[in-house]
């Protein structure tokens, strides 16, 4: 049984970058983590107080809460390799 991935994507409104990031993320997860992940999208325009908790500066930011260690990936997630390394799906080279 593989570990379950808890992912949280911080966005600010429906911007181009946010939309791209979310669709990229979904695509990678389906390919590599099918059935073992959950994605929570936080819109900081609606919940600004949540920005402090995860130290969010850049938008969009993807935070991998589980499994440890916590990792952040910022940007529209267009580089698939980097995202997979960031999520510890691929080992670091």
């Amino acid at each position, binding site marked *: 049984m593989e570990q379950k991935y808890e992912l949280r994507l*911080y966005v*600010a409104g429906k*911007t181009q*970058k946010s939309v*791209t*990031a979310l669709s990229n993320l979904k695509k990678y997860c389906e390919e590599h983590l099918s059935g073992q992940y959950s994605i929570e999208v936080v819109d*900081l*325009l609606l919940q*600004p*107080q949540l*920005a*402090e908790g995860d*130290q*969010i*500066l*850049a*938008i*969009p*930011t993807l935070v991998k809460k589980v499994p440890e*260690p*916590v*990792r*952040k*990936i*910022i*940007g*529209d*997630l*267009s*580089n698939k390799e*980097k*995202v997979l*390394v*960031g999520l510890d799906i691929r080992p670091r080279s």
Partner: protein
Amino acid sequence: MSVKRETSLRLNKKLTALPKTKTGINGLDEITLGGLPSGRPTLICGGPGCGKTLFSLEFIVRGAEDFNEPGVFVAFEEKADEILMNVASLGFDLERLQNEKKIRMDYIHIDKTEIEETGEYDLEGLFIRLGYAIDSIGAKRVVLDTIENLFAGLSNEGIIRAELRRLFRWLKDKGVTAIITGEKGKESLTRQGLEEYVSDCVILLDHRVINQISTRRLRIVKYRGSLHGTNEYPFLIDDEGISVLPVTSLKLDKPVSSDTISSGIGALDEMFPMGGFYKGSSILVSGTAGTGKTSIAASFVNQACLKKDKCLFFAFEESPAQIIRNMRSIGMDLQKHVDKGLLQFYASRPTMFGLEMHLVAIHKAIQKFKPKVVVLDPITNLITVGSFSDVKAMLVRLIDFLQNEQITVMFTALTLNTVVSEQTDDGVSSLVDAWLYIKDIELNGERNRGLYIMKSRGMHHSNQVREFLITSKGLELVDVYLGPEGILTGSAREAQMLQEETGQVLHTYAVSRKDRELLRKRKVLEAKIESLKSEFESAEEELNKIYTEEEIKRSVMEENRQKITEIRKAGGKFLSGKQLNGKSKIKK
């Protein structure tokens, strides 16, 4: 903001000037003529440990406490609780202010190791956080300390620069007065060239160590749309926060007094027509070693204390106990003034801390004690901790401050026969109102002290060199003797005086002899007059005798003639026996 606007500001004050926000930092508002530009970002830059964080934090705290302007402090460097602890020693109770919703501390941390960057992003998250923090307490002031850390945490510089530009515009739109701190770069004001984005007001902090003594300085590099002091101003961080000390106040409009204050030496007061120094003036007493400068200062203090004026004595050379003991030997009891609380000593070695610290310590002591008279003994010792020009700058500021408070100050200065100290005299002398100079007069193998007034602004003064004596009864001035060979002092003067005294005795003797002779002559003359008088009397008597005889003779003859006539008339008639024998009265 253009040059045009600045000119028009000067021409017509009724035009709306740039609105300013008071920082509440001691002295800074004076230099900036009212504070930082309201609703605009200000850049504070400087090297590590120069006080940027503290500076910006004090801006927030003072705003919250004194001006009712809540503030947000965003730390990119230290954690909020670390800052809380760091500033607790300065008396800033950030926790209470946070609970009262006057301050909001936000800590933004970027750890490069846990961040991957892929593709396009922006810093909207920072904006949202900042906006949320500002709105949650209605902040008017914002500090971003040190925003350059973004460059260390994120690798896409292009995005950061674009976002920073947007951030500063956004802060302006928000109408908050912001301070952004930046680390000093090698060739630019900040490492990342932040000054490019923040162009309204830039303040540079500096921390220099000269001769192992550190001095903090501040300079306003630019301030658009406003006049400002352009000098480097020393500033201090102590247990009450930051104090910036303007080198000179921007105006010379101090109140002046024409009352005078006695020097404590009667004869010295007489050298001034007004009977002493002006109140609130500054007096320099200079002289070589052992000429009695401290004694003059002590006597000045003693006199003021006797008049119930409070005095503060800054001793940079001797301890208070030493001064009190030494002054007792010349008949001054300073201890009783100390006991009464009229006199306070403040003794410290000049090397204990830098000049600025000294100046602030002096400021604080004066503001606390509120004296009428201040003595600094000696200022030349301060040169050991600062260059000549630093000491001069410090004294200018001190004199400025004292004159504003109408405090009379006396400095003593040691002169040596070296170029440096001559400069000191010259440098300081232009600042002081009165200058007493004590000089060694060496004559006949002994040293004596001569005192004269080099200058005294605003009153005539004696141009005479007076001999200055330190006796067990106190200080005295005697007129210098002018002998046939010039000025005489000390034992030569005594000798001359003795010699003149001898002459006086001889003279007195001669005079009395002449008097006696005169008396004798008079007696002789009087005797002569007496004998002449008696001679005259006898001559007169003789003359009188002849005259009487003549008279008798004449009357007898007349009688006889009449008798004969009678006889002839009677002829033969008769001859009365009576007529014949009648004796007529003889007139005498």
